[in-house]
């Protein structure tokens, strides 16, 4: 019987993948539920196994299924998208971290190994910890959560810290609007994240790990929990991992609706059972992290990049990218975009290539006016900056940030003063309240923008707004208050007409 692949990714399910899968099964297909390829405008995307590769159909609505089956979908002869991996969207990408997402059954350990899984872990276990850290350092991998701190240096600090007890914590509190790569990886290829965390444990000498997943992601939580249970059963977690000296076990912890817990020290507080309030640094978590012990805290994508690096070598990874941004990044096209989804490609791709070539412009068909890069704390950029390369340093120089790689597109109907107001409103809602610039500044920011929009002492209030932004940037304890000025200032700078 032909194998037919239908995503179980929650984005695909949100537009009817479950119904399509059930109908295909009833029509006689052997349905395998996979992750999503990340071509989200084509979801539900159905793929059919043929001798030449997988042939794609999408978007397939439940009411399309009968017709497609009658036209020969189940043997791949019905007219459709052609071979999925030959689609331009896929061919133009370099999928390292996302290589298996959308391909494998996420909960099949056999599939994981059959598609190259655990090669990185085996390579790592054959090396002493310091050499594993060396490979990660040489690869140039930097933290994909947003801060871009070199992963190898963080690991070195934890390895060198003296402690009986160390932890590996994965930050899967992916709260930034416009980002969904962590979710898709956890739902589509959870064993790769487990593998990356196990490599980290070996590299730094940890025996225990936690994945902190936001409660807004119930599918990711269920998939990770099931994958961890399957990994334990296979001896990929627990005592003597893959027959080595390493013992490592992993636990899922669920957040409770607080954006701030994506900040690493808040996340640690939350894991310890407290209010998610940020800690002052130093001490850094690598030295005094979870329960005061040396702790690796990495984003999902950083940890999931590690198995590829160990399997293929640091040089192969470092070969990709530009400047000090090495390797690939998983960019996410979102908002008002015709072709939204996952683009994993080497750093250096321009913003315009992503939004226009991959994304196909807006979904509404109207002109693009602004894009916000890097989540709610990232800058709003105009089309005139579309030649900006996705590179940590180039973005920093432009007063923006790459962040977690989310790119939200807006058309020409957007009111940028309203978006600037929203940035403050969001900060006021989500501030942990520990430091005054963030807790009070966000509220004052909303009020000041309201006055500007109402035409009250506009010039004076724009000066006041700028002063407030400086204070929040310089005086806040963490990135929440410190970066909220970024969307605000970029909106004022690039879209001044909306504040007049």
């Amino acid at each position: 019987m032909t194998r037919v692949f239908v995503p179980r990714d929650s984005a695909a399910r949100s537009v009817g993948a479950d119904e399509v899968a059930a109908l295909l099964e009833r029509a006689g297909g052997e349905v395998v539920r996979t992750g999503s390829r990340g071509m989200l405008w084509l979801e539900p995307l159905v793929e059919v196994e043929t001798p030449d590769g997988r042939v794609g159909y999408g978007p397939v609505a439940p009411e399309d299924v009968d017709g497609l089956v009658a036209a020969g979908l189940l043997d791949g002869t019905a007219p459709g998208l052609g071979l999925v991996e030959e689609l331009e969207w896929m061919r133009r990408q370099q999928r390292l971290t996302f290589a298996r997402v959308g391909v494998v059954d996420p909960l099949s350990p056999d599939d994981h190994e059959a598609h190259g899984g655990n090669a990185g872990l085996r390579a790592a276990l054959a090396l002493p910890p310091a050499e594993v850290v060396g490979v990660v350092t040489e690869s140039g991998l930097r933290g994909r959560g947003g801060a871009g701190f070199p992963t190898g240096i963080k690991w070195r600090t934890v390895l060198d810290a003296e402690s009986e007890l160390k932890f590996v914590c994965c930050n899967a509190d992916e709260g930034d609007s416009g980002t969904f790569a962590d979710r898709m990886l956890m739902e589509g290829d959870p064993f790769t994240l487990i593998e990356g965390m196990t490599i980290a444990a070996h590299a730094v000498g940890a025996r225990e790990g936690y994945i902190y997943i936001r409660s807004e992601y119930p599918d990711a939580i269920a998939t990770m929990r099931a994958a961890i249970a399957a990994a334990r059963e296979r001896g990929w977690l627990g005592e003597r991992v893959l027959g080595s000296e390493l013992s490592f076990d992993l636990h899922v912890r669920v957040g409770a609706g607080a954006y701030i817990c994506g900040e690493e020290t808040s996340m640690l507080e939350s894991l310890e059972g407290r209010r998610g309030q940020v800690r002052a640094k130093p001490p850094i978590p690598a030295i005094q992290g979870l329960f005061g012990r040396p702790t690796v805290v990495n984003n999902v994508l950083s940890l999931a990049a590690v198995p590829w690096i160990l399997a293929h070598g640091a040089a192969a990874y470092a070969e990709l990218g530009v400047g000090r941004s090495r390797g690939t990044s998983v960019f996410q096209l979102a908002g008002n975009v015709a072709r939204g989804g996952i683009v994993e490609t080497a750093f250096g791709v321009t913003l315009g290539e992503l939004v226009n070539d991959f994304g196909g412009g807006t979904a509404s068909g109207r002109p693009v006016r602004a894009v916000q890069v890097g989540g709610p704390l990232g800058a709003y950029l105009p089309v005139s900056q579309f030649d900006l390369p996705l590179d940590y340093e180039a973005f920093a120089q432009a007063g923006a940030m790459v962040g977690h790689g989310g790119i939200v597109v807006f058309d020409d109907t957007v009111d940028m003063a309203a978006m600037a107001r929203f940035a403050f409103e969001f900060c006021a809602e989500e501030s942990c309240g520990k430091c005054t610039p963030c807790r009070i500044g966000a509220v004052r920011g909303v009020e000041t923008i309201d006055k500007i929009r109402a035409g009250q002492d506009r010039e004076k209030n724009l000066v006041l707004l700028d002063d407030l932004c400086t204070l929040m940037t310089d005086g806040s304890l963490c990135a929440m208050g410190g970066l909220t000025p970024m969307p605000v200032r970029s909106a004022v700078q690039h879209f001044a007409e909306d504040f007049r």
Partner: protein
Amino acid sequence: MTSVTPPRTAAEECARAALAEHGSERGPLLPVLHAVQEKLGCIPRDVIPVIADGLNLSIAEVHGVVTFYKDFRSTPPGRTTVRICRAEACQARGANALVEHAKRQLGVEFGETTPDGAVTLDEVFCLGNCALGPAVQVGERLHGRVTPPRFDALLGEPR
């Protein structure tokens, strides 16, 4: 000195069961609270001293955690919880208009429950469905490209 132990309420029993299940984990407070809320739909005020006692914390510490996190409720929600994403990516696809529609249609504001107890409406900042907005979560189920007519249809479906 003798003390009279008052009879345990069902909520207290639930808290004790959660403590028995999660109490030995590291930093067990959030897992305990999630377990209680899953059973009872909220964290009733009278379980807080029980949890505090069980974890050797002060009542203030537990109360502080319960009130910090948006997920933890003090009263049970309606039979179905509907959360509309208000984050930037969904705003770019018309989330604000959907919010207005939903409030009008249900006759409630965010955080409120319809008088018949059927639906609690709330906002959420990002459901990770940012390429298929506006996104809405009904119970635990995610929905994409939710136009006002589709929203009405979702509410009309048996839940």
